[in-house]
């Protein structure tokens, strides 16, 4: 069993004309690597009609609907995160209800609003009520504001997690660029923040540092935009860890924090 907790799919209204090929490539590579379930999100229109990290309500609905259709089409292998923009509070809560009722298994917050902003609290309260985790996009050590996103770092996610101890948060793509040393230090003592290992970064020493900071009990495996780097981390971890420890990262931790019956063998 292998669960990718950080996947994405594209759709026909995204700017990418090759969206079908990219989706097919993800599924094909997933089969090669042995991914059992892709837990995925679609960030609105991927920039076509509203910004990737500030998606409009209508783009959010289209993306979530497309993902729900994919989830139905690939009932065994794809699960969805409901994407919302906290700035559209009423829409966000309604969209979460709709998507979770339809079978999505988590919430994806990207970079529409800083993680420690009070606007995220109602969303997290719903996460607690529904028993779903929140995958939060993170810039590892944000030293300034970056164009195109209101990015958060681990300190800001930690503040949100401390306000909602009953919700499990996934700190997105520790290998996704930025100072992961800063992130690990920030969330080391926050038990409801898990580290998602995805991202193109395959820095020597990063996995050892993750294990040291939060132990194998709080690591979850993922790929994001690069399945090759996900597979590389898995191969390296095979050399570092026992089979039972590796299973925690491959799927057992994910199975624990996602809702019961979210995955085939639950």
């Amino acid at each position: 069993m292998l669960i990718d907790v950080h996947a994405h799919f594209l759709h026909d209204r995204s700017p990418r004309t090759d969206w079908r090929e990219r989706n097919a490539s993800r599924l094909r590579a997933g089969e090669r690597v042995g991914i059992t379930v892709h837990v995925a999100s679609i960030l609105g229109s991927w920039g076509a009609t509203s910004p990737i990290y500030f998606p409009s309500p209508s783009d959010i609905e289209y993306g979530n609907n497309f993902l729900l259709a994919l989830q139905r089409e690939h009932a065994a292998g794809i699960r969805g995160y409901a994407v919302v923009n906290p700035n559209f509070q009423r829409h966000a809560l309604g969209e979460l209800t709709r998507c979770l009722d339809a079978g999505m298994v988590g919430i994806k917050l990207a970079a529409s609003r800083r993680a420690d902003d009070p606007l995220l609290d109602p969303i997290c309260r719903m996460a607690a009520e529904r028993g779903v985790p929140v995958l939060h996009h993170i810039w590892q050590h944000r030293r300034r504001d970056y164009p195109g996103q209101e990015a958060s770092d681990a300190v800001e996610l930690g503040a949100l997690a401390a306000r909602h101890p009953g919700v499990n948060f996934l700190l997105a793509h520790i290998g996704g660029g930025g100072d992961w040393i800063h992130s690990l230090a920030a969330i080391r003592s926050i038990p409801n923040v898990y580290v998602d290992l995805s991202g193109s970064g395959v820095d020597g020493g990063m996995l050892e540092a993750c294990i040291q900071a939060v132990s194998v009990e709080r690591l979850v495996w993922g790929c994001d935009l690069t399945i090759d780097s996900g597979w590389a981390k898995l191969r390296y971890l095979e050399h570092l860890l026992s089979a039972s420890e590796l299973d925690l990262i491959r799927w057992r931790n994910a199975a624990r924090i996602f809702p019961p019956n979210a995955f085939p063998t639950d």
Partner: protein
Amino acid sequence: MRVDVNSFVGAYPFRRVPGTSVQAVLQSMDRVAVDQAWISHLPSVFWRDPAEGNSWLYQITEGSERLRPVPAVHPGLKGWEEAIREARSRGVPAVRCDPTYYAIDSTGPEMLRLVQVCASENLALIMAVRLEDARQRHPNDRAPELAAASVRTLLRADPALRLLITHADRSFVEEVHFGSTPEESARIWWDICWIWGPPEDHLETLLRTVGVERFVFGTGQPLRLPDNSIAKLDLLTLSPEHRAGLESENALILSRSARTSKTRRVKA
């Protein structure tokens, strides 16, 4: 056979990196089935005189079939030609220069002189675009990344220069390749360590558009997990010939041409 053209030994100054000793790199090579590595001395990339690391590099690779030295050359320091002569006499696969880390102009007169000498000595020149993701570098690690425009300029500076560029991504490769004549682009090789695999499939695209013969297996270890470059190959559908080309033969062609040229020059 698998040849890693992009490997380092020695400590990194900006963060703790495990496995930087010679023994650890050899163990890592065993683990991921790398038969031979072209080794650069990592600490000296940041030294005032990077060539001061070469003697140790020669010492640790002396008589080794698995480790081949890639000595550093700083063309802004008087007497740098001696480093080239020694490299030539020792039959190294290539020399390296990291002008942005040495804080010299990547296309200035010193670099232009270096490429002329490398060309005349038929020594391949290795240059890294980067060593780490720019977003994570230490606040005091401020050397600029190598620019694609600089690579094009150097490539045009001497018609006999052969370049091996490491840590380049898809857009960098494309900018240089399609910004060069076919003759120019036939003198440049790219390591695969920074090129994305699926689902974006940058490597697969480049192998098709730029050509399999232009790419070589490189890992950037121990700063990067060597497993990544192998995973990229394992995710491709490659003929045995193409896989062998990527894993070793393209690099060996580059390496052998230097030796062949040495013989030719001696006879002449």
